[in-house]
């Protein structure tokens, strides 16, 4: 094949692959970039579509932690000082620093009753590592953020 034809082919193949990749990336990002909701944002924007994975964050309401079953599942309520609250269910090991009154970010989905089923919980790890989103949210009150 002549050098020019070859260059043309290489360019055409690379370009079409790039376009294919860009299309994939576009759809993947549109469908899979997780939006972040605090209770306040939820009240403002309304529920995301059922079955779409999102992240919710806020503080674990003191006194809200309970076990509906044999202990494998936990339930708690996420608050952020706004009138809206988010009930969360999680089955699994909670992060070491997860407790009532502490900040938490949950990854999961809402069901049609408004219950958020988390597949992953992120708690404040230590002073240096805090879920990034929570730095922007305001603490509920002095005692709630310990």
């Amino acid at each position, binding site marked *: 094949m002549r050098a020019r034809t070859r260059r043309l082919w290489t360019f055409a193949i690379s370009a079409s692959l790039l376009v294919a*990749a860009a299309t994939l990336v576009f759809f993947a990002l549109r469908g899979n970039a997780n939006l972040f909701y605090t209770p306040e944002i939820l009240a403002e924007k309304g529920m995301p579509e059922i079955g779409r994975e999102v992240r919710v964050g806020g503080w674990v309401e003191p006194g809200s932690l309970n076990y509906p079953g044999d*202990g494998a599942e936990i339930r708690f309520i996420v608050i952020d000082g706004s009138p809206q609250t988010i009930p969360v269910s999680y089955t699994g090991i909670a992060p070491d620093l997860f407790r009532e009154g502490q900040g938490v970010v949950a990854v999961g989905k809402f069901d049609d009753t408004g219950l958020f089923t988390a597949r992953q919980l992120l708690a404040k790890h230590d002073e240096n590592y805090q879920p990034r989103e929570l730095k922007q949210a305001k603490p509920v009150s002095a005692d709630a953020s310990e």
Partner: protein
Amino acid sequence: MIEIGHLLTFLALGLSLAQGVFGFMGRRALAGRIALTAFVSMALAFLTLVVAFAQSDFSVALVANNSHTLKPMAYKLAGTWGNHEGSMALWCLVTLGFGAAGAVLMRTGREIFEARALGMQGLLAVGALAYLLFASSPFTRLDPAPFQGASLNPLLQDPALTFHPPMLYLGYVGYSFVFALAAAGLMEARIDRVWAKEARRWGLAAFVPLTLGIALGSYWAYYELGWGGWWFWDPVENASLMPWLIGAAFLHSVIVTEKRGGFAAWTALLAVLAFLFSIMGAFLVRSGVLTSVHAFAVDPERGLLLLLGLIFYGLIALVLFAVRAPRLEGGKGWSGFSREGALMANNIVLVVAALTVLLGTLFPLMAEAAGQTISVGEPYFNLTFVPILVLILAILPVVQAWAWGKADLSHWMKWALGGLGLVLVFAALGVGVFEISLGAAFGLALGMWLIFGALWELKRRAVSLRRVFRLQLRIWGMTLAHVGLGVFIIGAVVETTQRYESTIALPRDGTETVAGWSITLEDVRAIEGPNWYADRAELSIAKSGARATLAPMKRYYPAAQMPTTETAIYKTGTGDLYVALGERRDVDGEARWVFRVYFNPLIDLVFFGVFLMALGGFLSLLPRRRKVGAGS
């Protein structure tokens, strides 16, 4: 002691500057000697830091912040590089180490070229050393010295993590020398076979430790984090994957340059990009712009300096490239259906894959700049990265037999039909008999296809079975690497799609059945280690005759005020039964302990496959085997 180290580091900085000047003046021998001296100087400086850690000298700020007298000695030593400043010192040491190794090992017979490569390496070292000395000095004293240190993050007190950073840095920084070679080659507009032969060895010298470093990190994440998985698409994992992909592309492209003189500009570009991606990884991890478990030094100013370094070296390289690339020789002509064409396809795919990872990693940053908080996780990468790679893997066994220049396509159909048949058989077997998903069956077939193809290629090249062991080591290296890729894919696909997980809450003497295993909680006891105490659960597990005890722990490190999870793993022939202990929950007045139980099928193949790839790279790096009787 560390004052001496501080002085020696300044000396290394001065020497690197001299290495740069004399190197660019073309004084090969002098630059080489300076490179060796600079390396020795920095090695001694690093040693003073290690000694300070070994002696728990808390008057050194770095030791006080990252060590503790009760820590086991191995972790005291590993603490030297388990923090920002120390790891940058390691970065400098490795940069100078590659300069020294280059001074000794380069064999191109081109004095000016080698001198310039050493000069460029010196210039890279100057940047790293200046950053170390003026922006993140490990040589700072505390007055008064504290009586006790703040300890190393307990998650990092682990054997795999002791070797993970040095391996990773050998890889990242190894690409600095590939960068230097590319810059020197571009300066004289000579990216030819001799250049490629040299650059390929250094590309392998970086690729092997980078592969091992990533595997160690992944293995650590598997058993230490207690999340069951081995890859989480964490920004820091991505930061190491991008240079790996570019480095892999380089290793394939440089073959064309070495054997046929082709792809010269493209190979040089990849050589430069591999190192730029490495610096970008350092920037992403150290600046705190991305949220990650690795972000141990969240300091925007340091991040800015790294970004400036990235832009500075990137500009040098790209300007050189823009000026010289048009003057590079083109090599022999080739048709699209040829080994050149196949390797070109490999390169396009690997680079596009690296770009999708880059986009997924940076997208949250861009979104944040636009005022939205967004995270990009596994589903994105499964949708973009995976199909792109599948494309090239599926054709690999067919195209690797193609000849240089123009391939004989008469057997093409046979191969394609063979592959298709294999996929169909596996899909039918997998879905029908073993009840796995179609995607998993396809993945399995792909892995088998790769292994089969690699072995077939070995046989084809050897012509007869007796001659297999007389083949060049680099052929063996290629075969092992491709077999390793196949093994990895089988492990990854089976583990990811067939993993079983469940959460159970057991009271004392309670039993539950998970994945066919009956799990009984015998006892939970408090125990104590050298610098931690722990709750240790004793579980007896049983499944059709097999019986064992597992003891997962939840440790607490008082010095760092941090808990860690110590998982317990029972290896069966087909996978790992993996248990992590969670918290105690009091349900209706009864104490229960939460366990996360996973069955991770064929997980060992994931790590073994990656190990084979590294081993293949290592074999390719070994010097050519001399032919018996040839005498050369």
